[in-house]
């Protein structure tokens, strides 16, 4: 069935919930691209025949073209979604991802991630690359009203506490 492999890639990715990154399916990707090449070549042959007069082939040509478009869409969606997941994991874990995740990435994805890490650094030193990293622990956060309340209490108990 045309487009099965490409759709299979997308389905596997869709099933891997929670941002989890399954291994990079090189073989299936290669097969999907191979299928596209075969469809295109068949279409090329049929187009010249259709021009010669066999107009009944036009529907077949159009069908193959739809399969090609679907394959393209699925493959690009698969690759793009993997990139999004990898970038999200980078924000989660910092610049060095755990080995289990790195194992599932292709060489180009690793390079892409390294370039992405460089943009984040170039983009402004105030942006912190690891989620929640600088914010020591949320239990130490006091809202401003509470701080003012503490100041009032201390003032009320006679301690010298000038406003910061």
């Amino acid at each position, binding site marked *: 069935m045309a487009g099965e492999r490409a759709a299979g890639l997308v389905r596997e990715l869709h099933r891997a919930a929670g941002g989890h990154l399954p291994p990079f399916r090189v073989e299936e990707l290669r097969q999907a*691209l191979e299928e596209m090449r075969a469809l295109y070549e068949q279409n090329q042959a049929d187009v010249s025949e259709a021009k010669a007069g066999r107009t009944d082939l036009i529907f077949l040509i159009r069908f193959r073209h739809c399969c090609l478009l679907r394959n393209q869409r699925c493959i690009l969606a698969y690759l793009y979604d993997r990139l999004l997941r990898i970038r999200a994991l980078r924000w989660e874990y910092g610049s060095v991802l755990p080995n289990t995740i790195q194992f599932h990435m292709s060489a180009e994805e690793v390079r892409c991630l390294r370039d992405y890490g460089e*943009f984040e650094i170039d983009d*402004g030193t105030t942006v912190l690359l690891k989620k929640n990293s600088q914010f020591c622990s949320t239990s130490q*956060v*006091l809202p401003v009203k509470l701080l003012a309340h503490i100041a009032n209490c201390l003032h009320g108990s006679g301690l010298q506490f000038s406003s910061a």
Partner: protein
Amino acid sequence: MEANLKRAKSGDLKVSVHRMEIERIRYVLSSYLRCRLVKIEKFFPHVLEKEKSRAEGEPSILSPEEFAFAKEYMANTETYLKNVALKHMPPNLQKVSLLKSVPKPNLDSFVFLRVLERQENILVEPETDEQREYTIDLEQGSQHLIRYRTIAPLVASGAVQLI
């Protein structure tokens, strides 16, 4: 000595409270910048398109660093997709329009807002074919739930505040 101790303790508390406040401010700023980056990443072709089609006098929606980031991000993604998949595809399918593939931000989603300056005669577009367009007045201090597209210019000018 007790007085000294009290003074030392209050000094200590001042320092740690001050430090906490600084950390808080740093976190909020980082959070704001991170939020902007997330939005740029999510809608990068549309953001770059808007920046390209902006008129001469209008201020930019991106800081220079953000603009450089968006351009490099786009180049990075395009190169990756091209090298891994597109260049192995048949010749007529090797180009893909990211502007059409990446979803656009939904400007018709409903947002809550608070009115800071009184506005009159805001035109509300009809949602369905049966409805007609009508105008409303926004009283100062009132809060509304309305489609973003209707009040987008007011957000930019600061006349309303999103909540």
